[in-house]
């Protein structure tokens, strides 16, 4: 490659995402638009160039913006994130792709020891605007090490934002917001929703959602399901099925785990008095534990029942042939709702 070459083809702003668009297309469009909007944005990762990434999220970017803006790196995650730190120190805005959740772990030291604390260590002199995109979660029949839900590691690290979209529109908007953020963002992409579709096109003007704002996807009076990322569609399905049982369930999509939108969650739960937190990752020490604790602290006198969690088992991610038993499903969610002490309500 010739890093200083100015022969890169003119950036193509042409839309790729057409109605209906998939989440993968929305993410691609977000990267494209970010590359056009800001020359400091650089995409780097394994196979992100010619191939367009193993999930094709970076499809066509190297062709349209040149190898210097969308770079196939050597195969080394700590090196990818470590060099991104240096690029950000120089004023660039790197967007790093980790190929899979479990293959981001080699970069963990760079993330924890540098990315998360460079701003703090330098008393604000050196913010690191790095976006780390990580396809995460199960449900795609992936063999070992391809289905981890790693959010708890990241949300326990002060200095990082942890964002995860659950809809096609949010995938676009939250990725734009993450790249624009002056803080490092771990951007968790629910890989089983990559091919989910929505009647959406990025050309329709819309507000980029602020990072840190939860959204009520469905309002309900009986109880509230609180979830994010890959579990949102499952919760919406559960809420629909719950109607038969006579329950009117609301669903809150957190969209970002850090910052955690305590206000929205507390306001909604105060209205229903009952809440279940749903996520794929192991329950013990997981995001749900934090969320349940905070709801209890904020809403104790409004609660009709303890906040329950429906999470993955506390096991290493299971073989694909068994994963359906592990992942929170509609029945397990409805069972939990059934245990919310209705008789006393």
């Amino acid at each position, binding site marked *: *490659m010739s*890093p*200083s070459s100015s022969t890169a083809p003119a950036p193509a702003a042409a839309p790729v995402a057409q109605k209906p668009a998939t989440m993968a297309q929305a993410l691609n469009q977000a990267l494209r638009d970010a590359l056009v909007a800001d020359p400091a944005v*650089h995409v780097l990762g394994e196979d992100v160039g010619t191939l367009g990434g193993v999930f094709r999220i970076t499809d066509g970017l190297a062709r349209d913006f040149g190898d*210097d803006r969308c770079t196939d*790196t*050597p195969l*080394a995650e*700590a*090196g990818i*994130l*470590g*060099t*991104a*730190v*240096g*690029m*950000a*120190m*120089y*004023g*660039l805005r*790197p967007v790093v792709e980790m190929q899979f959740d479990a293959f981001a772990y*080699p970069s963990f*030291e*760079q993330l924890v*020891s*540098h990315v998360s604390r*460079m*701003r*703090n*260590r*330098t*008393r*604000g*002199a*050196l*913010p690191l605007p790095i976006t780390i995109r990580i396809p995460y979660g199960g449900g795609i029949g992936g063999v070992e090490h391809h289905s981890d839900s790693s959010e708890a590691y990241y949300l326990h690290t*002060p*200095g990082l*934002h942890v964002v995860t979209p659950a809809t096609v529109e949010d995938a676009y908007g939250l990725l734009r917001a993450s790249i624009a*953020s*002056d*803080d490092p963002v771990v951007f968790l992409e629910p890989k089983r929703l990559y091919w989910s579709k929505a009647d959406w096109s990025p050309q329709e003007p819309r507000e980029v959602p602020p990072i*840190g704002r939860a959204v009520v996807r469905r309002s309900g009076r009986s109880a509230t399901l609180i979830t994010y990322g890959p579990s949102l569609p499952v919760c919406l399905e559960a809420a629909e099925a719950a109607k038969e049982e006579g329950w009117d369930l609301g669903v809150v999509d957190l969209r970002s785990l*850090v*910052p*955690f939108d*305590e*206000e929205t969650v507390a306001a909604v739960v105060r209205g229903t008095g009952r809440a279940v937190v749903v996520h794929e990752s192991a329950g013990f020490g997981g995001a749900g534990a934090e969320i349940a604790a905070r709801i209890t602290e904020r809403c104790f006198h409004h609660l009709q029942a303890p906040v329950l969690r429906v999470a993955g088992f506390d096991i290493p991610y299971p073989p694909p042939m068994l994963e359906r038993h592990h992942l929170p499903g509609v029945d397990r969610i409805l069972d939990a709702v059934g245990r919310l002490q209705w008789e006393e309500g």
Partner: protein
Amino acid sequence: MTVLDTPAWRPRTEAGPLLPDAAPFRLLGTPEAARLAPALLTELYGQLVRGRRFNRQATALTKQGRLAVYPSSTGQEACEIAAALALGPRDWLFPSYRDTLAVVARGVDPVEALTLLRGDWHTGYDPRETRVAPLSTPLATQLPHAVGLAHAARLSGDDVAALAMVGDGGTSEGDFHEALNFAAVWQAPVVFLVQNNGFAISVPLAKQSAAPSFAHKAVGYGMPGRLVDGNDAAAVHQVLTEAVDRARAGRGPTLVEAVTYRIDAHTNADDATRYRDDDEVAAWRAHDPVDLMERELTGRGLLDDALRQRTADEAEALAAALRERMHDEPRLDPMELFAHVYAEPTQQLRDQEAMLRAELEAEQQS
């Protein structure tokens, strides 16, 4: 097409030209030294003497409780100052935790360079203003940063090089490998300086690496390796300057191994007698960087008593100033704990901030 025509078949780089010399490169005391400019030699001499004095003063400050800890670079002053002097004003230095002296030689205020080791805020200087990255405590993790920064500079069309420092122990870390590989693949304008001082805390070289030399490792990545006498300030300065110039000229990275010795213990808190012989220390004391330079200057008639005295006085004055400025306890504002975690504090941080503020107010009232 046959396999012989595929890129995998043939070596991608010729190994021969990348190989380091068989023995560390030296200048002082050799006929070559005659062409060194007197001004350079006296500049290096002054820096060496001041650096030695700085190390002694900083160690003394630990005993007086003014510094939490100090990893001394006594014996390694030639590497420290040569690293700083090889860089131009726009270049970047990426120091390791032992390299306070290089940071100071680069022009950073000594008190600001010592804030980390004082227990004050982690980095006392502005890295962008000084072009010095924060002292890196997690070993070798700063190396990929140097590569990324150098790469970014090159992408931006700027004439900027980065010099990254690491110890012999740090070369065993994965980040060392990844940084060198990225640097070579990207042809990034970066120079790696391995200070081989014989020990990683207590662990000697033989337990760290079986490579012929650390400089040889360069060949595996496709960059030149240079081996230099790390106590010969003129030699280190020349080798590093060549490597930095080479990087800036777009000819890619270099790995430099400087063979030196850690004369003091690992830090003021360490007892080196538990793991090494006095004989070895004595041998290296007889190859001291300050002495080597003094001998060269004396031999060339460049060092008289007046210069010797003036240099010593300057070093004393710097030490006295440092003592004085480090005398007062720094005053830290606890409320600043929440100020730099994010661009905007989260609601949770604001709540915790309020809690600490209330605690501080209660403390003041009682």
